[in-house]
């Protein structure tokens, strides 16, 4: 009959393929039970076939292991415990539990995040390489760093350690310590992978603590398929494989270098664009300046010309109107003068002439009338005319008879008639 028993391995020895274990149980850190157990070589082979290489790791002193045991009683050796099987799941859980305990402890001690606070240079080209030379991981790492298309200008200082086995933790810690004294940008811890139990060394409290305390950023490149080990968690940068660690380093630099180049190109391009843009803007501005200046000037010229034309027109109008006034005045002078002359010619002088004519006619007619009157009188008084009508003139001694005085008797009287002169003697005078 087999029993499942949990026991802590206190000691483990191997002889001829057989494994002899000293199992203990502890209460409050004191051994409460102690017994030896044996894994016969055949059984071990079977277990190993089932679990794999982790079996060595699982059956290490200090581990609590879930065994399937058969209790035998031997006449010579007494009560014996024969291990017939090991449940690795329990061990894994145990590893995990201890890992968690380590994490807790590191956190409690304030060490857990120390690496995270360290500055990992973006150009990490001086590398302290801790690992086992000759392993595949080691080779991969180096060859990646030395022959990639991006950046190869690395300098590597190697610290050779074993990465598995009982001495591994101690050697790794030593290497870490020594690396501190070098002027490197980063410490890379490599392990080419392995089983869970293989990698358990990196869950080691001491090792993890030293990683935390490293003044130089630590990069891990521990190949694993599943959960990270404590070293991964506390280090500055965890990479899943040595190759990944190498890639991280050169890609980091490559990215940086590319960003740098892009940034600088961008600065140059933008600067040139900016200057070109400003020049364009400036040229436009200058064109506007010229255009608007000329436009304004043109307007001023138009205005001036308009003003000049206006003033000229007004001046000319004034002069022209003055000239017409002058012409009018001169015309007036002329027409008034000619008028005056015409009046004199057509009216004054003819009037005078008419009056002259009329006056002379009047004088002549008056004189003519006067003369006619005299002539008529003369005719009337003409004696011959009197005789013709039967009158006669008698004279005595040449004196008109009517004028005679004295004694006329006897006197000879001459009487003139139309018949001739009659001579007679006065014989009588008869008075009225």
């Amino acid at each position, binding site marked *: 009959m087999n029993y499942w028993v949990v026991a802590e391995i206190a000691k483990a020895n191997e002889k001829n393929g057989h494994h002899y274990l000293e199992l203990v149980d502890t209460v409050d850190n004191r051994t409460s039970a102690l017994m030896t157990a044996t894994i016969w070589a055949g059984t071990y082979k079977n277990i190993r076939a089932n679990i794999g290489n982790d079996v060595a790791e699982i059956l290490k002193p200090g581990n609590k292991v879930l065994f399937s045991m058969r209790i035998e009683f031997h006449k010579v050796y007494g009560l014996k415990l024969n291990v017939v099987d090991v449940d690795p799941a329990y061990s894994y859980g145990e590893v995990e539990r201890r890992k968690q305990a380590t994490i807790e402890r590191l956190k409690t001690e304030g060490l857990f995040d120390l690496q995270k606070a360290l500055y990992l240079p973006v150009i990490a080209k001086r590398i302290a390489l801790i690992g086992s030379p000759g392993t595949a991981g080691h080779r991969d790492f180096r060859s990646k760093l030395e022959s990639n298309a991006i950046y190869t200008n690395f300098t590597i200082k190697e610290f050779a350690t074993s990465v598995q086995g009982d001495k591994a933790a101690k050697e790794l810690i030593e290497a870490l310590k020594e690396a501190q004294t070098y002027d490197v940008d980063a410490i890379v811890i490599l392990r080419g992978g392995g089983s869970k139990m293989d990698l358990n060394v990196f869950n080691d409290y001491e090792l993890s603590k030293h990683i935390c305390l490293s003044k130089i950023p630590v990069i891990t490149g521990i190949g694993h398929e599943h959960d990270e080990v404590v070293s991964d968690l506390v280090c500055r940068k965890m990479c899943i494989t040595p190759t990944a660690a190498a890639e991280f380093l050169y890609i980091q630099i490559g990215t940086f270098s590319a960003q740098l180049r892009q940034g600088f190109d961008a600065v140059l391009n933008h600067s040139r664009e900016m200057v070109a843009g400003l020049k364009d803007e400036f040229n436009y501005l200058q064109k506007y300046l010229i255009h608007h200046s000329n436009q304004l000037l043109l307007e001023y010229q138009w205005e001036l010309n308009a003003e000049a034309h206006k003033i000229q027109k007004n001046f000319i109008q004034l002069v022209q109107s003055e000239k017409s006034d002058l012409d009018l005045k001169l015309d007036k002078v002329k027409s008034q003068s000619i008028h005056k002359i015409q009046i004199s010619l057509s009216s004054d002088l003819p009037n005078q*002439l008419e009056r002259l004519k009329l006056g002379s006619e009047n004088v002549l007619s008056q004189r003519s009338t006067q*003369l006619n009157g005299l002539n008529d*009188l003369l005719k009337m008084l003409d004696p011959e005319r009197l005789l013709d009508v039967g009158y006669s003139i008698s004279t005595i001694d040449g004196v008109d008879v009517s004028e005679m005085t004295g004694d006329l008797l006897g006197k000879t009287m001459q009487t003139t008639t139309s018949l001739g002169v009659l001579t007679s003697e006065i014989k009588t005078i008869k008075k009225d």
Partner: protein
Amino acid sequence: MKLEKDLKYEEALERLQEIVSLLERKEIKIDDLADKVKEAKTLVEFCREKLDRTETEINKIIEPSEG
């Protein structure tokens, strides 16, 4: 009867008036009467002629510029 060559119209008229006056006053002797009358007639003719001539002359002076 002959008049002085340069007898003036006014003088002729005066003498005419004188003769007419004499005739009116019958102060002319019958013997002179005929002579006086003749003289008067001559004077009248002289005067008339003078007037006619003057008129003609004046017309000649004035007319041409009237036409």
